[in-house]
């Protein structure tokens, strides 16, 4: 037990043994999966059409929004390049499903139906459509276990989206509550503020929504304010989740790469480096 807690030797043993319990997990999962299959295959034409229409509108709206986002992202990257500051972009994601098994009710853990065979690694962040859910702790060949951000043993570096105050969000053990115990009494934080991941721990990608501040209590007798936040992710409702591989290539590296390319292009006069001219101007302020 001590070895499991403190060291990593037993991890491979645990991964191997988890194959043993995989059939059990599948068996428990089966009734839900079967009913889901029936629901999907017995859906009426009208239901499907309605769903299709609503999904289409949603897609259109999201596309419109992402157009703007792309423009903003390129602008952001360009401005950051002007400042020579590094900014990580681009992540790879994989959609996985939660298995409907219950674990220890006092630990906020979930089982995911993807494992080592899908290149999942311990510490990998998981998201849902609305925000960060948690991170992977144990990886088996076919399944893995993830701990949610509300688990009492979990902490996550965040920042206030409005003004960039950095702090740490701790799990409270209640599924709809995060605690922010390290915010000074005079800090500018108010209910309704969005908390996004700051990416400082190096584990979670920066800029994803984590929680919304729900209440701030200033107690003059204490050095820190008592701040409570509600997770944005639907921790107890989502079934589909996203696994993220944070990308390590930052804009500075990309810039180096483009510069190398430019060098090549200059060496090779056949290809005119016209589209890059604007970039070069921007890079030398």
């Amino acid at each position, binding site marked *: *037990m001590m070895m*499991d*807690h403190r060291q990593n030797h*037993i991890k491979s*043993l*645990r991964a191997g*043994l*988890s194959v*043993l*319990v995989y059939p*059990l*997990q599948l*068996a*428990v999962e089966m009734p*839900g999966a079967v009913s889901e299959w029936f629901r999907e295959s017995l859906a009426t034409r009208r239901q499907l059409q309605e769903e299709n229409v609503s999904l289409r509108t949603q897609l259109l709206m999201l596309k419109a929004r992402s157009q703007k986002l792309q423009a903003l992202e390129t602008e952001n990257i360009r401005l950051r390049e002007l400042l020579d500051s590094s900014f990580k972009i681009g992540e790879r994601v994989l959609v996985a499903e939660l298995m*409907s*098994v*219950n*674990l*220890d*009710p*006092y*630990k906020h*853990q979930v*089982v995911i139906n993807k494992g080592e065979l899908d290149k999942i690694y311990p510490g990998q962040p998981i998201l849902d459509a609305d925000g960060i859910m948690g991170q992977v*702790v*144990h990886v088996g060949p076919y399944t893995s*276990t993830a701990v949610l951000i509300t688990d*009492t*043993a979990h902490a996550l570096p965040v920042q206030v989206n409005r003004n960039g105050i950095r702090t740490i969000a701790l799990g409270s*053990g209640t599924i709809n509550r995060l605690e922010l115990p390290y915010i000074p009494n005079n800090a500018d934080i108010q209910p309704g503020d969005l908390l996004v991941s700051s990416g400082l721990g190096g584990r979670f990608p920066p800029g994803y929504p984590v929680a919304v501040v729900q209440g701030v209590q200033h107690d003059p007798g204490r050095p820190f304010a008592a701040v409570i936040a509600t997770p944005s992710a639907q921790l107890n409702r989502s079934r589909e989740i996203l696994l993220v591989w944070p990308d390590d290539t930052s804009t500075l590296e990309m810039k180096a790469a483009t510069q190398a390319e430019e060098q090549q292009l200059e060496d090779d006069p056949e290809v005119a480096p016209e589209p890059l001219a604007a970039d070069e101007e921007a890079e030398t302020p």
Partner: protein
Amino acid sequence: MIIGRHHGGGVIAVTFVTALLLTIVPLPEWARYLRPDWVGLVLIYWCLAVPDRVGVGTGWVMGLLVDLLTGSLLGQHAMALTIVAYLTLRLHLRVRLFPVWQQALTVLVLLILHQLLSLWVSRFIGRPGPPLYYWAPSLAGMFIWPFIYIALRSLRRGFRVS
């Protein structure tokens, strides 16, 4: 393990697998905190009924499987169930003669011991203390013991497990 006079090992295995399934089957939120310790109950029954077949080793293996299933520290439930199995073996001659309600009380003590041991481990690695209703599964286990006892006894007689 299978020697001539032993009989019905499959039945024992099936009951343990069922108990493991019941340990992780999804329940509504309110019932999650009441889920009895199925593996513990089944282990106690078989330790009382066929102490020469099911014992400390079985307890350890089952505990390890529970650890894998519930994502607890590897060995946490294994240790607790090993100790529960050992105590049941020590007491089995006496407990077998008890009326069912008295057995249920003994089972309550054993189940609380199981929870206490695994609570010690989780406190030791720095998890916070649980609320008072942490102990509810033991009580649920006590109330469910008569039914488990009757069901498993009829299974044992039906399949002549010895």
